[in-house]
């Protein structure tokens, strides 16, 4: 099935889109023309320049509304769908208790110079986020939150000491792609330090990650913005227990 859609302003198919940007030009007729030319190249045709305001000496801010001629082909959209069942805290605890028969060990940290613990705290701290309790609340999970500005060697050492089943890393700062560099450094260090069968599940999270980049970054899973503790817990159970058991069964058969 091929489904084609366009943005919706107030009528199906009108393609109406709103954009704003700044050009390094003082505000005059020519600058407005330049903004409209850019809009046309972005596929906005016809475009309406609804607002232009000069900022400082040589910059102008524009707001443009227009109909975009590009089409979205839904069958070509690729995303990471949740490929595991969403469990309640009780269900997570039951699976861990019955199938793993020991506590599942989780180590979390913000690595590198990143001092923003908001993400890792939301997932790990008892308090959690948006009314959902964090992983510390799960009786069958043993959680160690190392906090901020942890070096990669510190993280690897802690993961070994805690016999971590999973390592959660949060990265908020993205200046100069710090989040990508740090993640690659982290996954490489784990590959170096531990054989594949001893390596914990590596999970990174942060608002600016592309969830499709797992292979490129050498991690098992990436969680983007809006992820809840329950999703992470469900994934842990799926990847470390349920899925592993099924794979074993498949190999045996």
């Amino acid at each position, binding site marked *: 099935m091929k489904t084609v859609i366009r943005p919706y302003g107030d009528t199906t198919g009108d393609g109406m889109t709103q954009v704003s940007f700044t050009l390094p030009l003082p505000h005059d007729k020519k600058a407005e023309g330049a903004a409209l030319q850019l809009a046309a190249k972005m596929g906005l045709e016809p475009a309406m320049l609804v607002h232009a305001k000069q900022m400082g000496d040589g*910059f102008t801010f524009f707001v443009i509304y227009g109909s975009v001629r590009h089409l979205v082909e839904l069958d070509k959209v690729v995303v990471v769908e949740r490929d595991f069942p969403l469990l309640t805290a009780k269900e997570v605890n039951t699976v861990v208790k019955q199938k793993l028969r020991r506590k599942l060990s989780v180590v979390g940290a913000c690595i590198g110079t990143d001092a923003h613990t908001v993400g890792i705290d939301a997932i790990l701290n008892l308090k959690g986020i948006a009314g959902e309790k964090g992983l510390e609340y799960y009786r069958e999970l043993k959680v160690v939150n190392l906090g901020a*500005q942890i070096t990669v060697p510190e993280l690897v050492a802690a993961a070994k000491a805690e016999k971590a089943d999973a390592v959660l890393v949060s990265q908020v700062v993205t200046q100069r792609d710090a989040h990508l560099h740090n993640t690659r450094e982290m996954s490489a260090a784990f590959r170096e330090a531990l054989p594949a069968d001893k390596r914990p599940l590596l999970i990174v999270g942060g608002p600016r990650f592309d969830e499709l980049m797992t292979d490129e970054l050498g991690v098992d899973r990436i969680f983007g913005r809006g992820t809840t503790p329950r999703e992470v817990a469900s994934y842990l159970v799926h990847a470390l227990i349920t899925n592993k058991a099924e794979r074993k069964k498949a190999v045996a058969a």
Partner: protein
Amino acid sequence: MSSNKLGLDPALVHRARALAAKAGRPVVDMARSHTTVSVERAVLRLSGVTGADPDGIPWVNRLVDAVRNDVGLGHGVALPVFHALAEHGLEPTGAELTLLAQKAAAGSVRFDLPTGKAVTAAKKASRRQVAAGIKLIDRNRADRDKMIKRYGDPKQRPWIYLIVATGDIYEDIPQAQAAARAGADVIAVIRSTGQSLLDYVPEGATREGFAGTYATQENFRLMRAALDESSRELGRYVRLTNYASGLCMPEIATLAGLQRLDMMLNDSMYGILFRDINPIRTFVDQRFSRQIHARAGIIINTGEDNYLTTADAVEAAHTVTVSQLLNEYFAHEAGLADWQLGLGHAFEINPELPESFRLELAHALLARELFPDAPLKWMPPTKHMTGDVFRGNLLDGFFNLVGALTGQGILLVGMMTEAVVTPWLSDRDIALQNVRYVLGAAGNLHEDFVPAPDGFIQRRAHQVLDEAIDLLEKIEDDTLLNAIADGTFGIMKRPAHRGKGLDGVAKHDDGYYNPATEILETPGKEQQ
């Protein structure tokens, strides 16, 4: 501004202050009986030691490390250093002290503690040299006063505070000047993330940083010179802010005084809670840095807003009040006047919560009424900025309105792109437009705004003050260091024997001497 709009019981307010003083006193005693590597390095910086070795490690670090290896830190570095200077036939000047540091780093100097007459000589020489450094700070303060007289203060309150953070000082300068032109009264150059955990201050102009620009003496100088230019151009004195926090707090405070910075972030507990720096290290460094700020006429900004980004802004509202009271006590003890206390608080209540705006008003007004003569620092929403920039702009508007309604002194401009990108030129312009609109339309609304007696806002403020007093009572029973260890503030648990930088702390031995502390604690003598 001390209008008592909340009907606060003066006896209760007095009790809260007395409790804060009681809780803080043991910490002050501890700070007075300890020193740190950074305090001692600050003494050397005041004496005129400058520069760094080829690896970028400052000579003050090399010198303090050498002294510490030979005789320990318990007597301070002034006596062994100035004694060695005399022994080696060097003059007590900044240049020759730097030379001594170089020799010490090369292993050609051994440090000893002077005895007898040599003690008096070393004391005298070090005091004279440190006094010259403090004189530079005094001169900068006088220069600032002159410039404010000439160019004037901002016309409105709150002062508008904007952040620049490119990582490159030469990129920061035009951005800061553009921000000043667009209406900013205070420019803060945010530090590179991670600098707080460096146990040295980097040297020179820097062009590489993560989410901020390194605080260095040269960067301070360059930015202050650029803003002096802007002040002349705009006809108002544009203030410069940086961060006296982390492991080098005393040195950065000193450099701020030497380069005429105007405001410094300087919280008594932030480093402990959010950077896991050892509590004793922090309180010792804190006291010295505040004494420098007091002398330099620098306004400090405290960091209570941070508690609310980790803890819930309603449940933890009273921890902000408690921290403000402690910060006030520590600041007064270190010699800061009320006009220098930019006590922090923030608009961080979940906007989905019913009556969230009224709660914000109650909390902000409580801070205003408790500290009537302090230029409170009002911080914008960050935690509940979702990436929906339209909603974010609305939230920032309400934040600005609370600022106007409660007479805040310093308003950090909120960005609708908080949690999305580092602010774009247009984000800043839109944010300033938001501030200008609210201050223009409702800037004096605080004159008319009087909460109903025993209404929602008054009751909430009373409740927060009561909770703050309860907590202060508990802290006093348990001691502040234990309260910090138990996770009372911002949920973080920080025991006194753990954390970064503990190995740089030393208890004073008999005969400890610090000429800077001596001068700073007896003002008037050295002042012109």
